[in-house]
């Protein structure tokens, strides 16, 4: 039963990574850039939810929605102000800018909300569900996290596969020039992608802080890097890849903590990543670029 417990914790942590990785991978797919500020959007979302629920006593659902709204706007603003002017610049310039935005958000949060840790109120309470006559107990946070991830996966798959906007997004991520010839406004499509990615980051932030309630301005950076790793692991640019990569990464991390060493768990995670990339350089579900001539 302890194995099952670890597995569930792994899937739950992995679900959070997966939700964050979706933002990385969608933005990479369409804007061909690594948005290293994505992790810090998570942190902003967590603070917004914290203030809404703890300070203003709003119901948790309202807190989550407020966090999503603020992060969506933040994502669009960051793209417009920091990345859009660099659309034609070399990718290194965009990468450095993204790191700059990341520090800007972290330092902004320190200034606004002080570096003192806040204790995040779990949005789903601290209840536990006992299964198999109490042999296996699962916290509500774990269940809600996994359920949220499943809902988001299904929603995104339907969105990209069956809606006009979702298809336009896929068209833009394949060939922006051709998409423009179809009458697709590429800039607004990129904005929508940032908006969705950032809205999801807010959800991930709330779930993350519900499971690990210590909220500081750097809360988002490590999960951000892990989720980026997950996106690469699964194949950057691929939505199912981000989901698979995120969940696998979470499971590996928890198993490494449980069975190998708590201190070495991150090293194990990255060792697995390096091994996968040696065998499959495009990631697990990465697209091999092959074009007919």
């Amino acid at each position, binding site marked *: 039963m302890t194995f099952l417990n670890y597995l569930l914790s792994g899937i739950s942590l992995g679900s959070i990574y997966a939700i964050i990785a979706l933002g990385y991978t969608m933005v990479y797919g369409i804007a061909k850039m690594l948005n290293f500020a994505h992790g810090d959007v998570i942190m902003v979302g967590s603070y917004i939810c914290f203030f809404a629920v703890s300070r203003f006593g709003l119901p948790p659902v309202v807190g989550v929605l407020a966090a999503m709204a603020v992060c969506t706007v933040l994502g669009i603003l960051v793209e417009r102000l920091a990345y859009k002017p660099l659309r034609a610049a070399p990718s290194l310039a965009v990468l450095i800018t993204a790191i700059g935005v990341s520090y800007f958000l972290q330092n902004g949060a320190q200034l606004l909300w002080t570096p003192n840790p806040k204790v995040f109120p779990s949005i789903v309470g601290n209840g536990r569900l006992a299964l198999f006559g109490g042999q296996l107990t699962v916290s509500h946070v774990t269940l809600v996290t996994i359920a949220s991830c499943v809902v988001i996966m299904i929603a995104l798959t339907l969105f990209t596969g069956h809606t006009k906007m979702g298809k*336009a997004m*896929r068209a833009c991520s394949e060939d922006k020039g*051709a998409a*423009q*010839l*179809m009458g*697709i406004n590429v800039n607004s499509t990129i904005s929508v992608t940032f908006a969705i990615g950032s809205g999801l980051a807010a959800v991930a932030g709330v779930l993350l802080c519900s499971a690990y309630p210590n909220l500081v301005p750097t809360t988002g950076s490590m999960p951000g890097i892990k989720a980026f790793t997950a996106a690469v692991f699964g194949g950057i640019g691929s939505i199912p890849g981000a989901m698979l990569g995120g969940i696998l990464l979470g499971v590996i991390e928890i198993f490494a903590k449980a069975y190998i060493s708590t201190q070495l768990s991150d090293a194990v995670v990255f060792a697995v990543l390096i091994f996968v990339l040696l065998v499959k350089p495009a990631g697990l579900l990465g697209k091999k670029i092959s*074009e007919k001539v």
Partner: protein
Amino acid sequence: MLTVDGIHVYYGNIHALKGISFEVNEGEIVALIGANGAGKSTTLQTVSGIMHPRSGKITFLDEDITHTDGYKLPAKGLAQVPEGRRIFLQMTVMENLEMGAYIHKGKVPEEDFENVFSHFPRLKERRGQIAGTLSGGEQQMLAMGRALMSHPKLLMLDEPSMGLAPILVEEIFNIIREFHAAGATILLVEQNAEMALQVADRAYVLESGTIALSGTGAELAQSDEIKKAYLGG
């Protein structure tokens, strides 16, 4: 329908188009021919709003579109089949056609798909297939079908014969004739001058960013200069 008036286009400091003027009237096939690097594709990209001229004017259906953003032009009735086809390789044939109808609000009518399939029956057989798995000729057909989905008033074709076997080139040009017979207005850019002059009502010859010659397709096909330079003697 389309009037291009003395456009100058630059790539950075390179003066690519040096004052090009031409026009396309309703119902015509107009060909732009010329060697590699003469400025044919640049001209089309400028008309499509992907590039903008530093000076000069482009008018389409009495509207100045010189500086209009490219993505707004399909809604005005301009469609381009780009060089190298540029279909969405990871999307299905149907999804590619849906993207062609992107400017259409609401559900795309079934007749629009049927219209494309009537010109390209092979696309119907392969409607659910991922576009990247199509042959080169089928990809060209898909690119043309995709452009038809927006009901263009002016269809621009950039090198439709490029990279295709002679028999397929013949097929593509037959389809261009079919479009023309149905009343379509076409601006054709081609390196294959022989084929282009056969179908074109009028043609312009581009040479290093300027228009060197113009005339009806038949006139130019008989011209000694053209024969020597583009038709292999």
